[in-house]
């Protein structure tokens, strides 16, 4: 019996070495060590042995069994390693080929700039107000202290629909609409982005363009507050090291009025091509809300003051992205749009 055990054992070990598949390995294991396996069958015959022989034979069988199991384990690991090596050897790709493209659309640069401006002012507690693009003469001009025949109306060439209805030339009418709506609530603190229209078309003017208006009305609003808010905005928009300066200007709906320059984002103020050597770049117009405009909005200029500002989105986009010709923004060439 012992010789039989040894014979099965040696034979099996020999076979193990020749097998090269995990499945065959498993098959052989069942054939030898399984319920009906050859070695198991020998173990069953142990009942016929004498009491003295039994433990000896048992030991022989168990030893063989564990020897085989170890051999199986080793062969299995060996085969796995071989298989892995083989797989790695065949699975080679050219990592320099371009990756699968996930289609990605692009937001128009003007949208991106408007959203960035919105986010900055939302962070400062402003709400976003909107108004119609087709406006009445009253809201676009008269309520903004620009009566009919006022010479300042000429600053803007308007698109008219009728004598009394026109495409708004500025987002400023939203100032009046907002005040009318919110009155007598305080504070009024809104920005109003949107399309505006002027009869003009060249490299720096488009007949349709975008503005963002700002309006703050409350007790005790000061011109220094305007400066603070705009400094904050400029630094978020153009960089933390930016400075601003105010220059006297004229708008019919603000008094005092100021043009706001930001220190050049390209040269930092030293003077370069972008800022035409001045170190400053004009970015927006602003001022303290004219008392007549507050009155038109329903507020008492003796009790409250306010400031307002308006900026051209195209201009800011052109500065931010280094766009030289405004017409590119409305040409919508995909090679242009897909850069953003």
């Amino acid at each position, binding site marked *: 019996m012992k010789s039989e055990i040894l014979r099965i054992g040696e034979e099996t070990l020999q076979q193990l070495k020749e097998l090269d598949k995990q499945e065959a390995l498993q098959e052989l294991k069942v054939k030898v060590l399984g319920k009906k396996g050859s070695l198991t069958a020998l173990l069953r015959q142990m009942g016929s042995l004498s009491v003295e022989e039994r433990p000896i034979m048992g030991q022989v069988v168990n030893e063989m069994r564990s020897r085989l199991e170890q051999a199986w384990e080793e062969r299995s690991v060996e085969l796995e390693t071989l298989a892995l090596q083989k797989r790695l050897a065949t699975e080679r790709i050219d990592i320099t080929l371009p990756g699968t493209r996930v289609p990605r659309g*692009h937001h*128009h640069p003007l949208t991106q700039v408007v959203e960035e401006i919105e986010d900055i002012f939302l962070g400062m507690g402003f709400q976003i107000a909107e108004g119609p693009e087709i406006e009445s003469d009253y809201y676009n001009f008269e309520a903004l202290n620009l009566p009919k025949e006022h010479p300042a109306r000429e600053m803007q060439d308007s698109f008219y629909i009728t004598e009394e209805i026109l495409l708004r030339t500025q987002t400023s009418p939203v100032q009046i609409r907002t005040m009318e709506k919110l009155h007598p609530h305080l504070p009024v603190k809104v920005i109003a982005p949107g399309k505006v229209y002027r009869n003009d078309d060249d490299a720096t003017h488009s*007949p349709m363009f975008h503005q963002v208006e700002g309006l703050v009305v409350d*007790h005790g*609003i000061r011109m220094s507050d305007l400066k603070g808010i705009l400094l904050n905005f400029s630094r978020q928009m153009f960089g933390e090291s930016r400075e601003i300066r105010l220059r006297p200007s*004229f708008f019919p709906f603000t008094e005092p009025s100021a043009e706001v320059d930001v220190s050049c984002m390209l040269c930092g103020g030293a003077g370069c091509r972008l800022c035409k050597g001045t170190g400053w770049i004009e970015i927006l117009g602003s001022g303290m809300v004219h008392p007549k405009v507050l009155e038109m909005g329903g507020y008492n200029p003796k009790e409250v003051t306010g400031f307002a500002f308006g900026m051209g989105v195209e201009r800011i986009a052109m500065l931010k992205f280094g766009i030289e010709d405004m017409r590119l923004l409305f040409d919508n*060439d995909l090679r242009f749009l897909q850069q953003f």
Partner: protein
Amino acid sequence: MKVSLEWLRELVDLDQSAEDLAETLTRGGIEVEDVENLNKGFEKVVIGEIVSLIKHPDADRLWVCTVNVGQEVVVIVTGAQNLLVGDRVPVALVGSTLPNELSIRKSKLRGVVSQGMLCSREELLLDVTVGLERSADGILILLPDAPVGENFGKYLGREDSVLDLELYPNRPDCLAMVNVAREVASLTRKIPHLPKWTEQNQVLTLPTAADLQIIIEEPELCWRYAGLVVEDVHIAPSPEWMQRRLKASGVRPISNIVDITNYCMLEMGQPLHAFDRDKINGDIHVRAAYPGEKIVTLDGVERTLQTDTLLIADDAQPLAVAGVMGGLDSEVTKDTKRLMIESAHFSGVSVRRTSRRLGLRSEASNRFEKGIDAYGIVATLGRVCDLLLDLGAGRPVALVDVVKNLPPQRQVSLSASHTSTVLGAELETAEIRQVLDDLNFAYTEQEGLFKVSIPTYRADIEIEEDLMEEVARLIGYDRIPTTLPQGDLTQGRRTPEQEFRRRLRKALAQAGMDEVITYTFTRAEADAQWGSAKHSIPLLNPLREELGVMRTSLVPGLLDVSARNVARRNTDVSIFEIGNTYWGEEQPLQKLPREELRVAGVAVGKSGRHWLNQPVNYDFYYLKGILEEVALEFGLKLEYRLAENQGLLHPGRSADIYLQNQCIGFLGEMHPSLEKEWELERVVLFELEFNPLFERMRQTVRAHSIPRFPAIQRDIAIVVASETAAEAVMSKMRKLGGELLQQVEIFDVYRGKPIPDDHKSLAFALRYQSLERTLTDEEVNLLNSRILEGIQQEFGAERRK
């Protein structure tokens, strides 16, 4: 307004350079657009004297000249043949760039080094009035007294710089040199030296004309009219200094009389007009034109006038269009012996309307339009008298001054403490006093409250805030600190609608579409095609014909963009726009129209080529897939029904889109018959109203728990008639499957062999699941075959094996 620095220096003490002054003015609120240096090109051109002339050793036609240029003696080689030793000539030194853009460098001519260039008239862009006659065919030869070594520009009197002021409409006063000088004086705290006629209450003492009356028939349009009668007129050119200043200001010199009127206008801001007194029949009438009345203006054009045109006329005929242009008949000529010089106020509105209509805009009309100082009308004539006498151009003999209307002289209060509060800057009362002194405004003061008398030339100052601006700009806006508003805390956030718009934009971009922004005005025919001609709103004055109406559809703009891109070989286009359309309810508009926000998309071409994947054609299903993604994101149940508008869309490949039984837009391939017109092939597009999407979008997400029991999947493949809608089959399946049928998906559509013609095979995956228990194969099989039977009955479907 062009401001000659040389002129300005006469009117105010100035120690700044042109560039520094420009900066001072700009920071003070008078924007200087440009500084023009009249000496440009002459910076390194000096007057030299020819010391010796020697033939070039190696060239017959060249001369080697030794030239004394003052500080040194230089050697210059020239090819000119008109020079003599001792001639004084303009020498362009090494490093100059001449007016004709020629740059002068040290050079070698046939072995001899030349240290500059002797210049001809042509090279310096000069006319024949400069230099000796001998200059004609070579180097410009100057008069023998030309100072050697002096800058040539200075010699020509061209050292001046001109500031170009970009004036805001509130500062028409700065259309006068004296007021620019006042402004400079205020900003730099210098003393102005103005003609005495700028001082208040100057009286021009002249007898009243016995034979001339002035009758103002339109006192609303003409507040004041003064006429100065001049005799012994001697017409001649005006002196060089006056011509130079006029040219620097952009005004062409004509004759002493015309030049004096223009000079005084530029100086004092009051437009003037000289009539030939002997051509005036009877009295002067300031009146409206009669119907059909005609006048031949100075430019020789006969003009028919409207009845709202203001005229200067005599008893017989019109003499001038008030404030706009004189008449040819009463023009000053070389034979003129007597003058009437007009100094008057005309309504800005009236002058603007007339000058627009006649297409005549001038320095004079511009000043009337912006508004002149009616108080300065006679004072300006005083200045004219001085110049007439100084130049010996004529003898003022009489004055007629008719005043109908003068604006009130203003007093405005200014509180020091209120100013500090509004500006947010701590200002001392003394600082405000200083500002008012610098402005030369008269005032009284009581405990920080000022009562300021506003000079008549500063009509822009009406209220306290206007004075605050004067204070702020004179102390400098830099004095205002930066603070933040002190009021209640406010919440900054987008409205739900604004937020939805933003998310919708993001969703479409994430689906691979590029956002575009197109003009909201478009071609009338294109808008009529895709939108509604009945509602589209025409502009009265469009920029171009093809931008003539406000759009009622976003589609034409997107198709234009697509065609433009395809024409430029950007062949694969997938774009969208979110923007307004504009709907008028009546023609012409009586009230503001409805502005309706829409979202539209266009795709043409195919998805990007890639070595690994086949490109996909942009087709109906491509855009539908994008819309489905969007619908899924916002919990919208969009329904697709056969399109009704079949003229624009491919009848077999288009759908109207419904949301809760309301048609909100369409999706489809453009009708092949339109492809030529739009220069696009196989283009698919959609357009949806924004508001219904927003109103019905899912506001919040309610999460479902994940089923704990396993699902069982069964596939069903059937053959149905081609026209059977897959959605109809699926919805029947859902109905028959009840709540155990958790999901139906179509995973294959097939036409062709072995499926009979006019038929198609559809394959569905059905997923069965219960939330309460594990389903058995038996019950699923039973349910599945009931579904199969149901659709076999309903659609005549056959099971495909």
